[in-house]
């Protein structure tokens, strides 16, 4: 295709979209001269370009529309009818452009059907005006210029009007108040002259049209770069003290920034996908006889253009749905005491690495009874099962294929090919959709989609000797299942389930799902469980091993493999091997058929649970005294009961051979005695390949409790007391026992003495993380002051208490970590204090923001070695500075 023509098509397409939106605005604000000017200018440009390129049909249409709009500009009253006519003209122009794009020439035919009414409206205009035209209205300035070209050297094209005639019409139709119109025209002429051209020129200089393909290619190359960087990092990780470490760190940072930069070029405001909606809603409101207001918020929220393309259609569809099914007719609304005008609200915002789009209406809401009846009729659920479902669960049926409760099939919607298609589209881009609805008050659809599709964080797991990647997005938590632990795989008939915090989780073995049983005897009761959530469905994927998380570049699978719906793509890992990426949606479908009921039960539980405070799993045991003691279960590696005969003594210390290693046994306190016969219960703690056995009298229970240490303790080894299941319980400090166990801990203790001066202020709202990380920090030799909120932290800093470093959570109620960092750095006394952020939020956005507010490092919440390394680095910097 001719470059010129292609340019024209792109530009005109964009201009027309703008015209669409602006016209709808204009109809609502007929006196806004700025909007009209804008429309007029766009249509005028289109007309001019068409003439230049020799496209008579388009030119004629644009010309007729422009003439009518010229009338508006001159003060002709704006009627809905006229706007509709202009809109249909725009539509026709779009159709012609489409055909032009395909055939590369203008299609034959004429548009008298549109041009005639347009002209009629122009000519009839004076009669529409209230006042009779003044006899000698001065000709507008612009008209004088056109007089020079009065002689046409060709016959009139269809839709064209002879200039004489036009001139006559112009004179006759000068608005009711010619003077005002002239003034307005003058004002208009002045304003653009001074403001607009300069603004336009600026924009033209600062932006550049780039072919999408170029950007895509750039993105691919950056993705490759990320992969190569990962490979290098992997290699360097194997060589301690490599001289490449520093330059590689630099390369790594540059790569990350480059990646972010390229991502940005692909970002587009979501408003682009919304552009057509005002027009659609306007047409719908006319067609359905409803008054609809479209309220759009967050149109400048940006997301990847690939994602944008994919959600455009679902969004349009859902807005149509809201207009058709959601909103009532004005009569109904009046009867219900609502305002006649219904509202459809669209909003978009960022949350974590996601974009949330909400489409809500204030209409009638979902009719639960009807959906239930329809679901039973369509055999999606049995009548008995349906009775047990909650409202939310029933509402979910609207996403089932072929589901529609609309009584009448209208041209707008109701054909039952709606919401399931929407969901499929959203599933495809790894998003989720849910619906919240209250009868009589309206419904809101909440779509959650990832910011970008190209690079995702994934958990690398092993099953049947092969490795696979599971997108982190879907992973809720990891559970180690063992025969002796509280996390035990049980069976209901043949279906394996896991009892996890009072709910049953359906389990599926990745190995059998992928049919890669390698003949080895599998221990059905052991393994790692990746707790996965897809939409509202939660299930556990049982794998043989879990490695680490890695940023992976999703590469599409070969077409020959695309039929396997268990995989969403493949990728190259840092070590160069190719692995398949598991598609949680595909697995969910398989699990769904197996364990629907279990999932439903679980979900009902989840609903009951919402709103309760965060709870911690605690292991309750007795040691020495009758009073129970507890330790956060997450710290305990294993619970063991070992034969007392195996206990040996070396150097006066009890030891036991455990998994091929000598494990020191430490008593919780002096009252605890090693048993002389039978079995000895032990809590095994492992860290960096070493294990310690904590000798207790009896393991009592595992409970879920909101851990709140009420009475801090001075006794070494005891963090304090808390009320657990009605009993005052001592929470033990694991950090106290670890140094007693390891031989080489002495070396660490020395370090500890050296590092004694280093005090960490640890800010964390969750008691769980406070309790988990405080011992880790202490045992690494730091003095730790913990506070539960940013405000407390600031108080401590103000009090002048010694603090060398701050480790803080990001998401906290009240003041968050970003704000804390800003506050700390704005005070000159503490401006140079290193701050390490700790968060589950490790999106690029968050990291960037962290860098801006001055975090010295950014560590994922569960990355204990990472945290210690970061602290060490800060200490080293401080030592250097000292």
């Amino acid at each position, binding site marked *: 295709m001719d470059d010129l023509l292609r340019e024209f098509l792109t530009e005109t397409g964009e201009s027309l979209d703008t015209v669409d939106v602006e016209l709808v605005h204009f109809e609502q604000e007929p006196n806004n001269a700025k909007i009209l000017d804008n429309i007029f200018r766009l249509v005028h440009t289109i007309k001019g370009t068409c003439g230049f390129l020799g496209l008579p049909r388009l030119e004629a249409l644009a010309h007729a529309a422009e003439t009518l709009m010229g009338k508006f500009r001159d003060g002709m009253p704006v009627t809905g009818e006229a706007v509709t006519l202009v809109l249909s003209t725009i539509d026709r122009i779009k159709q012609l452009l489409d055909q032009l794009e395909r055939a590369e020439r203008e299609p034959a035919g004429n548009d008298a059907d549109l041009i005639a009414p347009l002209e009629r409206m122009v000519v009839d205009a004076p009669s529409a005006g209230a006042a009779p035209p003044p006899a000698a209205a001065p000709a507008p300035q612009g008209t004088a210029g056109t007089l020079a070209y009065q002689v046409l050297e060709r016959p009139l094209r269809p839709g064209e009007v002879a200039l004489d005639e036009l001139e006559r019409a112009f004179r006759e139709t000068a608005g009711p108040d010619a003077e005002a119109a002239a003034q307005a025209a003058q004002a208009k002429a002045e304003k653009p002259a001074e403001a607009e051209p300069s603004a336009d020129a600026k924009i033209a200089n600062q932006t550049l049209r780039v072919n999408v393909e170029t950007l895509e290619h750039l993105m691919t190359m950056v993705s490759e770069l990320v992969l190569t960087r990962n490979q290098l990092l992997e290699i360097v990780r194997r060589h301690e003290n490599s001289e490449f470490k520093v330059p590689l760190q630099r390369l790594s940072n540059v790569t990350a920034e480059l990646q972010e930069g390229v991502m940005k070029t692909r970002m587009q405001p979501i408003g682009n996908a919304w552009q057509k909606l005002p027009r659609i809603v306007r047409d719908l409101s006319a067609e359905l006889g409803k008054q609809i207001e479209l309220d759009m918020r967050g149109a400048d929220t940006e997301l990847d253009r690939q994602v944008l393309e994919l959600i455009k259609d679902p969004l349009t569809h859902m807005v149509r749905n809201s207009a058709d099914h959601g909103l009532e007719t004005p009569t109904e609304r009046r009867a219900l005491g609502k305002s006649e005008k219904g509202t459809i609200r669209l909003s978009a915002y960022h949350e974590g690495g996601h974009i949330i789009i909400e489409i809500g209406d204030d209409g009638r809401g979902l009719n639960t009874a009807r959906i239930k009846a329809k679901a039973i009729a369509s055999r999606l659920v049995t009548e008995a099962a349906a009775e047990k479902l909650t409202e939310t669960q029933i509402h979910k049926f609207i996403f089932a294929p072929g589901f529609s409760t609309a009584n009448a099939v209208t041209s707008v919607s109701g054909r039952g090919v709606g919401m399931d298609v929407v969901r499929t589209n959203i599933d495809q881009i790894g998003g989720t959709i849910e619906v919240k609805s209250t009868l009589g008050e309206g419904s809101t659809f909440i779509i959650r989609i990832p910011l970008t599709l190209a690079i995702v964080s994934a958990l690398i797991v092993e099953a049947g000797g092969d490795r696979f990647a599971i997108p982190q997005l879907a992973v809720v938590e990891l559970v180690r299942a063992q025969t002796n632990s509280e996390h035990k795989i049980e069976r209901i008939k043949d279906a394996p389930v896991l009892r996890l915090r009072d709910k049953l989780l359906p389990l599926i073995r990745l190995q059998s799902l992928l*049919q890669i049983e390698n003949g080895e005897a599998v221990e059905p009761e052991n393994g790692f469980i990746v707790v996965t959530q897809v939409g509202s469905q939660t299930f556990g994927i049982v794998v043989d091993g879990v490695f680490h998380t890695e940023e992976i570049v999703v590469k599409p699978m070969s077409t*020959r493999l695309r039929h396997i719906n268990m995989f969403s793509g493949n990728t190259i890992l840092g070590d160069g091997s190719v692995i*398949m990426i598991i598609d949680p949606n595909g697995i969910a479908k398989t699990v769904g058929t197996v364990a629907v009921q279990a999932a439903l039960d679980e979900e009902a539980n989840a609903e009951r649970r919402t709103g309760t405070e965060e709870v911690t799993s605690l292991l309750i045991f007795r040691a020495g005294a009758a009073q129970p003691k507890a330790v956060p279960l997450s710290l305990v590696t294993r619970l063991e009961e070992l034969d007392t005969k195996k206990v040996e003594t070396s150097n006066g210390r009890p030891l036991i051979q455990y998994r091929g290693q000598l494990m020191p046994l430490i008593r919780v306190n002096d009252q605890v005695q090693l048993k002389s016969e039978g079995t000895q219960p032990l809590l095994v703690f492992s860290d960096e390949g070493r294990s310690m056995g904590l000798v207790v009298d009896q393991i009592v229970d595992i409970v879920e409790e909101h851990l709140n240490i009420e009475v801090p303790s001075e006794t070494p080894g005891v963090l304090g007391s808390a009320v657990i299941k009605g009993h005052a319980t001592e929470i033990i400090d694991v950090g106290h026992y670890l140094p007693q166990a390891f031989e080489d801990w002495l070396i660490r203790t020395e370090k500890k003495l050296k590092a004694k001066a280093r005090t960490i202020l640890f800010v964390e709202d969750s008691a769980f993380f406070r309790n988990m990380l405080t011992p880790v920090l202490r045992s690494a030799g730091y003095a730790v002051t913990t506070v539960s909120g940013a405000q407390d932290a600031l108080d401590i800093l103000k009090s002048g208490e010694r603090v060398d470093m701050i480790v803080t959570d990001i998401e906290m109620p009240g003041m968050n970590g970003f704000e804390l960092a800003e506050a700390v750095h704005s005070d000159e006394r503490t401006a140079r204090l290193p701050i390490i952020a700790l968060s589950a939020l490790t999106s690029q956005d968050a990291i960037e923001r962290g860098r801006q507010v001055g975090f010295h490092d950014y560590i994922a919440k569960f990355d204990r070695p990472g945290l210690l390394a970061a602290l060490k680095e800060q200490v080293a910097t401080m030592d250097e500075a000292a």
Partner: protein
Amino acid sequence: MSIGNDNHSGSFIEYVTVMISGQLFGLPISQVQDVFMPERLARVPLSGPEIAGVLNLRGRIVTAFDMHCRLGLGKRATDRPAMAVGIEFRGESYGLLIDSVGEVLKLAESSREPVPVNLDPHLARVAAGVHRLDKQLLVVLDVDRVFDSGSEVAAA
């Protein structure tokens, strides 16, 4: 196969010759990207038997086809390393696993003979003709058909 077909406008075509299970095959050189030793082949669960796996070839993910399976010659003997012929087909990279690669032969288009009617159907489906060489026969592989009908075989 007759005059006027674009593929055969030249009177000579160069073939990369490969051995699969003792039989000599020829692939038009214009369709062959490279020849490589397949390393670290990762199997793809739930895929058809002719998919040997996926591998990383200089940063590209290549889907490897087991030609033994594809041609109905049984599983490839795993005792010696395979070779692979890299082919780009509709924008995607594929590797055909074969036993060994031979020389490049320049053969006259006119000497190509139609596929014998009694050829094994697996073979016949992907063969575009036969050349008689001095000591043996060379079966010309039609690359499009190797990929196209593969799914039917997998389904069967």
